């Protein structure tokens, strides 16, 4: 893994999709009046004959994608996560998930990474998509995983939802890193641990920083990256959980129905009595604001993970201060 603050890549998704589509003629790209914002201006400009703007009509866009997919295309549907899932849930369920079609729903601006307030903050998209049979749910953590996810999704059979940070994506992993559509990754802290941190997407850098903060206090900390929230890699999660005293999940999403819930179901189902704490949006609608402000205010920052693990372990003394990581322009660091 690389060290924070991380170098960033602009539009890794749009580039990867456009590059792949040059050789994969079955790939189509649909959008809903958010072309530049979903990085698909690159696709539109390079391959205009396979790009279609549905306008602000998400329900119809899903149906069109379904028809195209049934006729043999692999259809990437792009908009903000909140409009991609909540607004057209029945259409996704009936026209895409139920017929098991090769439609890839790509939702940008997950959770509180949107400054736009509750109307633009996808805080329940994972919960909604996870509840649909046949649906794969993906949240890559960095630019490398995004590139690999695009290739993997093009070959995947069946529908998928991928939530993506908008704009600059950090480079966390080294080139040798491999994303697989059925695997979580145990990144650090193998063997017995005090706390096992399980994170996805934008919360991975915060979990890694929290682990470092806690390790400095002499604690053993494992970190798992879970880019595939469904189907969940139960084996990897249980193996790490059996070695840990407490588990802390971290997600940029409501704590209801997302990664934390999926881990809770897994632990309970396996009969593991290990304490679980869920860091995420605590069943509230948030507000407008910068990522830094919102992540701090709603408990999605590194400090929240540190505090949660510290308290779950029943440690005496003040909660250690999260290592601060100023990010220069063009780099990325967790809040």
């Amino acid at each position: 893994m690389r060290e924070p603050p991380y170098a960033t890549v602009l539009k890794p998704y749009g580039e990867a999709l456009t590059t792949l589509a040059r050789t994969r003629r079955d790939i189509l790209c649909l959008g809903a009046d958010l072309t530049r914002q979903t990085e698909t201006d690159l696709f539109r400009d390079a391959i205009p004959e396979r790009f279609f703007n549905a306008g602000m009509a998400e329900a119809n866009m899903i149906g069109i994608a379904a028809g195209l997919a049934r006729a043999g295309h692999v259809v990437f549907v792009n908009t903000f996560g909140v409009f991609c899932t909540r607004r057209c849930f029945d259409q996704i369920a009936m026209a895409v998930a139920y017929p098991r079609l090769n439609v890839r729903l790509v939702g940008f601006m997950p959770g509180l990474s949107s400054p736009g307030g509750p109307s633009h903050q996808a805080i329940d998209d994972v919960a909604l998509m996870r509840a649909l049979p046949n649906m794969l749910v993906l949240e890559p953590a960095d630019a490398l995983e995004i590139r690999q996810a695009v290739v993997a999704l093009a070959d995947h059979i069946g529908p998928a939802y991928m939530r993506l940070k908008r704009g600059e994506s950090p480079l966390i992993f080294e080139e040798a890193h491999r994303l697989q559509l059925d695997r979580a990754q145990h990144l650090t802290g193998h063997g017995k641990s005090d706390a096992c941190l399980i994170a996805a997407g934008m919360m991975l850098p915060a979990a890694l920083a929290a682990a470092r903060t806690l390790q400095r206090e002499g604690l053993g900390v494992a970190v798992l990256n879970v880019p595939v929230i469904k189907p969940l890699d139960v084996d990897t999660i249980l193996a790490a959980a059996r070695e840990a005293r407490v588990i802390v999940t971290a997600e940029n999403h409501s704590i209801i129905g997302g990664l934390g819930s999926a881990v809770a179901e897994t632990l309970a189902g396996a009969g593991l009595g290990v304490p679980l704490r869920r860091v995420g949006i605590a069943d509230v609608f948030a507000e407008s604001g910068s990522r830094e402000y919102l992540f701090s205010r709603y408990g999605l920052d590194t400090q929240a993970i540190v505090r949660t693990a510290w308290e779950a372990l029943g440690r005496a003394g003040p909660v250690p201060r999260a290592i601060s990581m100023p990010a220069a322009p063009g780099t990325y660091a967790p809040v």
Partner: protein
Amino acid sequence: MLSQQHSLVRRLATRIRLNATRMVAIQGFGYLGQALSSAEVFATLFGGAVLRPGRDRFVLSAGHYVIALYAAAAEVGLLDRAELAGYGRDGALLEAIGSERTPLVDMVCGSLGQGLSAAVGFALAAHLAGEQRATFAFLSDGELEEGQVWEAAMFASHQRQRMGRLVAIIDANNSQVDGPVSAVTTLEPMADKWRAFGWQALEVDGHDIAALTQALTCDFAGAPLALIARTSCVGRLRCLPATLDAHFLKLDEPLRAALEQELTRELQSADA
């Protein structure tokens, strides 16, 4: 020659009504009104050399009409007639509302208002592949209340050069769950709405085989076609009161017997 073809289609429409009556009679209730109102449309599509199975696309947006599709398909050899007896029964192939298990259709939608979007997707795919396929979407008037239909209409019109031969057939039987569509909301002027969305629109008597055939085979280009088939849920049957709300019909024994008798007579007189 043409009239001979029409009389075959007319006979098929009666067979569709008779099959549907028998299918519904097994459990005593079901979507009979849909089959009665749309029998001529399905007969024209499947018996009138309009829809070319395996080549043209067919989307059944109003999934409750699947009974009419089954009833027609069994008559033209696209479905084993024995399957009809299982309609709506636990574990049977033929579910009461269309599903992914429904044979013969490219997409079937039980959640209303969604089918035209999928049809537009099929039409676009045919264009991209350079294939000469027609795309037919069967809608009901009630589902025009769903906004998605008009999103699809808008998109199809905008992409008219890429839609090929796209036809939306609307069974305007003025029936929805809560009663007459006209009592629930105002869809009229229906044809003008489609025209305003950039479509060509035709209105015909949906029980008139000649008119349906002419409309469905007409040479149209430049814009997709909305065919509004004005129909009645009682399908002009004399034994049913014109005021009957047949959206989800309870078929008691006297009514079943009367339907069976009238439809059988109709077939006999057609054969004579």
